[in-house]
């Protein structure tokens, strides 16, 4: 509660400083809009639903792209973590690809899928899948062999061994990979939407730039930050906390 209060005071002061800079009139309004006008733009965006539609479209893209990358990434990570042949081949491909910023896939993506949703979803997928695969890989490699031996003597075999023991035991690492994958996916989504004109939050931001409406640009930026924080708070932090409690890594 006390921490929350500190945060509220800090951000109020920040907004105050911003308003002060605006009042000083050092820059024209089309360069630095006031917090009030940004607030108005936000309200208008929610009222005429343009922002909401943008959010919905972006969320749909990331949900699809991230969903696919979850499936593919965890599967690939399991293969790499358990089988030497995949570690030597697929594993080295993935660590190589990780050095490549996702947006570099844009030209190929456009060529393969055209100027549409699929191209952006592909970017989202490429953004997330590598982190999820490496997270799963390290999770699988860190499963204590004792768990696997114990499960085997209780009759766990093949896919049941994976489903009931290896994946749950690797979960703390998988979650870390998922979290990193999410932030890469979110960045790739925005990059894609800025460059490909097809609605979404990134497109709204670009529209603001084209109309020289900086308050819209900042408003969209705020929404992007807000969604990022919400996903982190509502999902990842909760899941991580839950796992840490279960495993006894923190005192609950």
């Amino acid at each position, binding site marked *: 509660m006390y921490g929350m209060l500190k945060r509220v005071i800090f951000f109020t002061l920040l907004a105050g400083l911003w308003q002060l800079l605006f009042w000083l009139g050092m820059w024209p309004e089309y360069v630095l809009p006031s917090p009030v006008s940004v607030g108005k733009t936000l309200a208008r965006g929610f009222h005429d639903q343009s922002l909401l539609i943008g959010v919905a479209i972006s969320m749909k893209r990331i949900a699809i792209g991230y969903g696919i990358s979850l499936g593919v990434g965890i599967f690939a990570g399991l293969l790499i973590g358990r089988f030497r042949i995949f570690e030597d081949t697929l594993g080295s491909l993935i660590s190589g690809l990780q050095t490549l910023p996702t947006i570099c896939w844009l030209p190929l993506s456009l060529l393969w899928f055209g100027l549409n949703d699929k191209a952006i979803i592909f970017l989202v997928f490429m953004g997330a899948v590598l982190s999820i695969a490496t997270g799963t890989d390290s999770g699988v490699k860190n499963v204590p062999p*004792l*768990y696997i*031996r*114990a*499960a*085997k*003597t*209780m*009759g*766990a075999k093949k896919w*049941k061994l994976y489903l*009931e*023991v290896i994946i*749950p*035991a690797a*979960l703390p690492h998988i979650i870390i990979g998922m979290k990193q994958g999410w932030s890469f996916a979110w960045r790739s989504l925005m990059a894609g939407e800025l460059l490909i004109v097809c609605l979404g939050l990134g497109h709204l931001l670009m529209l603001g730039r084209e109309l020289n409406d900086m308050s819209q640009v900042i408003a969209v930026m705020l929404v992007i930050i807000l969604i990022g924080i919400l996903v982190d708070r509502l999902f990842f932090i909760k899941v991580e906390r839950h*796992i840490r*409690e*279960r*495993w*006894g890594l923190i005192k609950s």
Partner: protein
Amino acid sequence: MSEGVGVDNLIELNYVEVDGGQRASKAHSVKPDLRVQHVSKSFQSKNGTVYVLEDINLEINQGEFVCLVGPSGCGKSTLMNIVAGLEQADSGDVWANGRRIQGAGPDRVVIFQEAALFPWLNVIKNVEFGLKLQGISSRERRNIALEYLKMVHLTKFQNSHIHELSGGMKQRVAIARALAMNPEMLLMDEPFSALDAQTRWILHYELQNIWMKTKKTILFVTHNIREAVCLADRIFILSTSPGRIKKEFAIDLPRPRDDNDVNVAEYSTRIMQELKAEIDKVVRCEMDADSCVECDIKCTSVEPVKTDIGGGI
């Protein structure tokens, strides 16, 4: 002992009649539940081949409680792993309940030194784990799990997280988890060696009670002779490098036994004398030699002599 066991390295079988000797004779009329035949195992190390087990032969009858005792590094855990199906022998066969074993299976559940409970599941779900693998309905497996949690007196903790339990409680949950699967036999690999003396004392009682109630065949590995005497019907002493069965003892004392009982202590002393030579071997190996090959040669060729550990350091 039934015939067919290679007894060339079985030096002596002592039956000490303390309490009528009924149990021992009864146990021998039952068919063997586990038969280990000519099992050998070696590893390649930097210093050459290490013979961990050499021509191990033993039979364990149904419902019998058998302890394997030996100094550290004598291969008793390796033998346990081979029986469990977690490791493969270089040669020889293991038969469990009339079938030649191939890999691990729920008829031979292992209880390890560390409880190996799964931290992502709470206590009761850990106990249910094996049953879930067998596809038993959630209601039925809950009932079975509760029954065995009750046997180890931990129903109060059924919803606890694993990290909230003490070491002794964890081992009791592990025992409940193994028993819930109704295995042919329990394989226990130094399950109490990481516990403090008081907890171990309690668990010796508890394990004996459980064994008398369930009549499971138990193969129990330990380096603690007192523990072995307290628990076992029969004790196999393993020698070290290479691991061989050196001697077999039948313990015929009334149950439940207490670690501190005079008879238990007396048996322990006698067995300790047998084991002394083996321990000396280990001591000399670990203290004198700078390479293991050399020590292997020394150990096997030279007759063990008394070493004054205190003065030698």
